[in-house]
């Protein structure tokens, strides 16, 4: 039993996310989903737009809370946590890579990367160093002083990746990380994800693109809020 809790990182139990419940326009974005993800896995959640995959990521990343069901993250019941504890989990446990980069336009690259470290309370030189290390990993240390508006889409996404990895969070969640990129820069981002996976980071990749999903070891296909398929890549019909 003890063995099990140490290897299971994410444990969704019969989770529902229902918008406008009991009204005419009720939407069941997640309709009773159960799912476990182990430490160190590379999982792709695949589905068409409107399938509920983004809702899934929001719940997995503690950006949103389920309507019903339980979510245990590293053994902790997320539903019982306070706003402060939730923000700490988002800060320390999860690194997000969004489709739309979501950088803060008023800050330059390194300041954007520093942001999660600021919220961790890391100060001064140590913070700048960690941020520069992360930028170095994505090959952007020479553009640290640039604002997002002065960079290409690929560069912005790499800054977003740097921000996600700067805290060395055990989980990286990437929502369509290559969606707005050309295939070459997209490949670069995926390479970084692979490298992180090699180091033991749990990667959860959300995409509609089966070619991208093929990078993962395990595929979860979602449609209309239900899991249609969950298994190793080799068995998935991609």
């Amino acid at each position, binding site marked *: 039993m003890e063995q099990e809790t140490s290897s299971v990182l994410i444990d969704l139990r019969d989770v529902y996310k229902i918008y406008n419940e009991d009204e005419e326009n009720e939407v069941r974005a997640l309709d009773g989903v159960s799912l476990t993800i182990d430490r160190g896995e590379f999982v792709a959640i695949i589905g068409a737009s409107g399938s509920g995959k983004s809702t899934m990521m*929001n719940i997995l*990343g503690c*950006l*949103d809370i389920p309507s019903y069901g339980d979510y245990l993250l590293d053994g902790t019941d997320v539903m019982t946590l306070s*706003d*402060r504890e939730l*923000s*700490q989990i*988002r*800060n*320390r446990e999860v690194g*997000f890579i*969004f489709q739309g980069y*979501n*950088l*803060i336009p*008023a*800050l330059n690259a390194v300041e954007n990367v520093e*942001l*999660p470290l*600021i*919220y*961790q309370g890391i*100060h001064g030189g140590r913070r700048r160093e960690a941020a520069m290390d992360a930028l170095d990993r994505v090959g952007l240390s020479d553009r640290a002083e640039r604002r997002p508006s002065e960079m290409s889409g690929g560069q912005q996404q790499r800054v977003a990746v740097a*921000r996600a990895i700067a805290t060395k969070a055990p989980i990286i969640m990437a929502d369509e990380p290559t969606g707005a990129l050309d295939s070459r820069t997209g490949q670069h981002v995926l390479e970084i994800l692979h490298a992180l996976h090699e180091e033991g980071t749990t990667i959860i990749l959300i995409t509609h693109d089966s070619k991208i999903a093929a990078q993962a070891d395990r595929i979860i296909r979602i449609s209309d809020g239900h899991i249609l398929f969950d298994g190793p890549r080799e068995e998935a019909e991609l």
Partner: protein
Amino acid sequence: MNFRQSFKMSMQSILGNRIRSFLTMLGIIIGVAAVMIMVSVVQGQNIEQKKYYESMGTNRVNVNASQWGGKDVTQQLYEYCLSLHDYVSGVTPSTSYSGTVKYKTKNCNNYTVNKNTIGAPQIYLGSDQYSICNNFKIAKGRDISYLDVRKYKKVVVLGDRLKSYLFEYEDPIGKEITIGGQTFKVIGVYAAKDKKSDYSLDYMGVVPYTMNRLLNKTNKLTDFTVKAKSPEATTDAVTRINGFLKGVINPHTGSYSVYTDNSWMQQSEKQNKMLSYVLGGIAGISLLVGGIGIMNIMLVTVTERTREIGIRKAIGGSRKSIIGQFLIEAAVLCGVGGLFGVMLGYLGTLIAGKLLLKITLLPSIPLTLAAVGFSVLLGIGFGMYPAVKASGLQPVEALRAD
């Protein structure tokens, strides 16, 4: 959350929308400046008034005893006042004479200042204690002495303004002037104590009170000035002299009054304080309106930056840190506005002081600090609602915004 980072963000946001920020701050700037100018002018007026009273001499009791029948009691009154030496440091008659004063071709009846005809000066019939009682200092020559009084010496000590008018650059000591047709020798000049006003306190002279019968053709001394040793002694002296006069003056044949400038001073100080509250309050309302402007703009900022709030929450920003950031922004906006307001307030106070009070007036340091502190508090107060609103958003909802 890091304060420096928040502060930097605030400055970026303020500088990024220069015109909007300036217009927002304008309310605070005008409010702070208005409060400072109004309060400073009242304070300045208060200080000027205090100076004026102090130059006349504080703790001074003015006694008047007029009689139209019965036995003259003024000599008795004089002696009684002198006997109060426990309370009193000086007593002088202060009956005045107003008549022609001349030196060579200069006639005081022609004296005008700024087109106001001032005319003849007051010549006071005083004792050797006149200068003590009225806070005059000898600048040149000597004061009236006990012997001058006793020996009926026809000598005069001039106030600075009268001396200047009669003698200009000539040395007045030893010169003879005529007062009401009588020749008096100038033995001294008092130091100026009121250089500015047209009806100057220095446009006067003092002769021994024994000259009364020569000038006013009477021995009756109706007015006395008593200098008490302290504010408490003033009250005592007023009570005692009142008691004495009540006993000796028959209300059918005479009347008397005893009063002190101290009460006037307190009265005017009270009025000034009231005035500064009222004017400061009115100006404070404009400051409040400025604060509402800040709240409005912070609400707009929250809406504009919903996505940024979402990002911050997604990567670990807690409610507290988001509130902190928006509060700092509002406080910086108000604080910078407050600083500009202080600058404008200094300028305005300087100009108002020159125009209204003819002095170099600057706002006091506590007032300045209070104005800036208040505007920062205003920022925090009015920034609170938008900040709490911003922090309450669910990250996923905030991220959905454009």
